[in-house]
């Protein structure tokens, strides 16, 4: 997968995206032809007087009849434009219907709930105890139709992973959904596409499309509660995270921290990004983020807590164990 298709609408990574591409090419072709026709007409129109053609002007206040060819042209032009538009409308309608038809075949469903600045992700399972919760990162098995239910906890957001599908809004008080059939393994980035407040720009997510077996492995891994901290440093971090500020907003399965205000952190370190796609996961970025989130993502709901250096070391050490 090429880098520039990471978030491009030409990523072509799902059946829907492929249909989009085909339709886009059709539209582009028709439009290009029309544009060429208009520009050619104009250039000729502007140029022909230079070559000394007879102009139908009103120099002496006398009316000339319009060129009859132009009247025919007008009728022809309207016919061409109307036909072109009807063709495009039909193409669009057909593509739309065929995208909608996949919705009936979903085999996996998950709920994405948007919050100002981040995405809450919950996978639905018929066995409720197999449901998993994560944030800002979605894993999808390749070739499996998946339905994503879209809800919002605060304002209107829009779920958009360009390489996989068009956008769909998440509107408080309403429930929308979108169905995707991923067809190419890869990593795709998406971003909130409806202005949602101060940190609209840094409200991203990544989607990992992977083979079914990997997906199941990932799911099982996600079901595991967080392991107990092994090192003394991580233990100190664990104590801080569960007894101080962090647990009031974040949940880590298997620990007393069960907050639902912020992203679930149970497998935080296994994710690819920090702060809803703001930065790649890594020790340095983690230090920066925990120490001073407000200067990395000004206006984020994550407060600058002001950890002492030893606290910061231990918290980062613990968070890194949350694979």
């Amino acid at each position, binding site marked *: 997968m090429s880098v520039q298709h990471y978030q491009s609408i030409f990523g072509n990574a799902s059946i829907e995206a492929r249909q989009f591409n085909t339709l886009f090419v059709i539209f582009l072709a028709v439009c290009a032809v029309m544009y060429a026709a208009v520009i050619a007409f104009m250039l000729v129109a502007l140029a022909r007087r230079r070559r000394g053609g007879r102009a139908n002007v009103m120099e002496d206040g006398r009316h000339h009849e319009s060129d009859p060819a132009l009247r025919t042209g007008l009728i022809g032009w309207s016919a061409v434009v109307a036909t072109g538009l009807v063709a495009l409308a039909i193409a669009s309608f057909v593509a739309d219907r065929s995208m909608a038809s996949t919705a009936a075949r979903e085999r996996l469903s998950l709920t994405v709930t948007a919050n100002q600045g981040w995405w809450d992700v919950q996978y639905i399972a018929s066995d409720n105890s197999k449901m998993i919760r994560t944030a800002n990162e979605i894993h999808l098995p390749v070739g499996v139709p998946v339905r994503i239910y879209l809800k919002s906890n*605060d304002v209107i957001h829009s779920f958009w992973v360009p390489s996989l599908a068009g956008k769909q809004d998440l509107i*408080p008080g309403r429930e929308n959904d979108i169905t995707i059939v991923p067809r190419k393994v890869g990593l795709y980035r998406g971003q909130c596409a409806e202005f949602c407040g*101060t940190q609209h720009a840094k409200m991203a997510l990544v989607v990992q499309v992977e083979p079914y077996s990997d997906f199941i492995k990932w799911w099982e891994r996600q079901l595991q509660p967080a392991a107990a901290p092994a090192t003394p440093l991580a233990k100190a971090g664990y104590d801080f995270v569960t*007894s*101080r*500020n962090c*647990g*009031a*907003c974040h949940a880590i399965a298997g620990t007393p921290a069960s907050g639902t*205000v912020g992203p679930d952190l149970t497998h935080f370190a296994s994710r690819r990004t920090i702060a809803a796609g703001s930065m790649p996961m890594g020790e340095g970025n983690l230090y920066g983020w925990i120490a*001073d989130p*407000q*200067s990395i993502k*000004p*206006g984020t709901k994550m*407060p*600058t*807590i*002001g950890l002492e250096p030893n606290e910061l070391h231990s918290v980062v050490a613990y968070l890194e164990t949350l694979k």
Partner: protein
Amino acid sequence: MSSRCRASFTLLALTALALGACNREERHSRAKPMGETVPAGVSPDTIWPGGTVAQTLDPRAKIYDNNAPAISQGQQLFSQMNCSGCHSHGGGGMGPALIDDEWRYGGRIDQIATSIAEGRPNGMPSWRSKLTQDQIWQLAAYVRSMSGQPSKDAVSSRAESMSNTAPQTLTPREPAHTSDTAEQ
């Protein structure tokens, strides 16, 4: 030119309206944590052995009191940190009412912040280790707004939820109480 005259006249009028706006609308994005110093004046008491002690208002009050974004953040924290579970939307329940004009531990913003940070003995938990000072003061600003203390222009009329109390933007402002008096 007269158009400039007119413009500056309008400007003056609007400035007068908006003077309060400067702090009211300022978005404080706190990159650095606030200090935890609690100044000497936050006691809710009104009697001191050996004569009156001059109460000084915590300087942070000026940043948070009447500041619309702070009150709004506080409103969000009030429900996220489960304050509403005990105090409802100010009517009370497990905890005392907050929209009334009785303040067991003082109704000044710094006194409220102290109540939140330190807790109170009959069931109010201490939030000092769960919330940053910034958040505590945002909450205090909101709690104070519930009883109609700050300007109507800094509060919001309702939340996007079931309607509850009469809109703060319309309720009459309550007068300051004895315990509120401090050198502003």
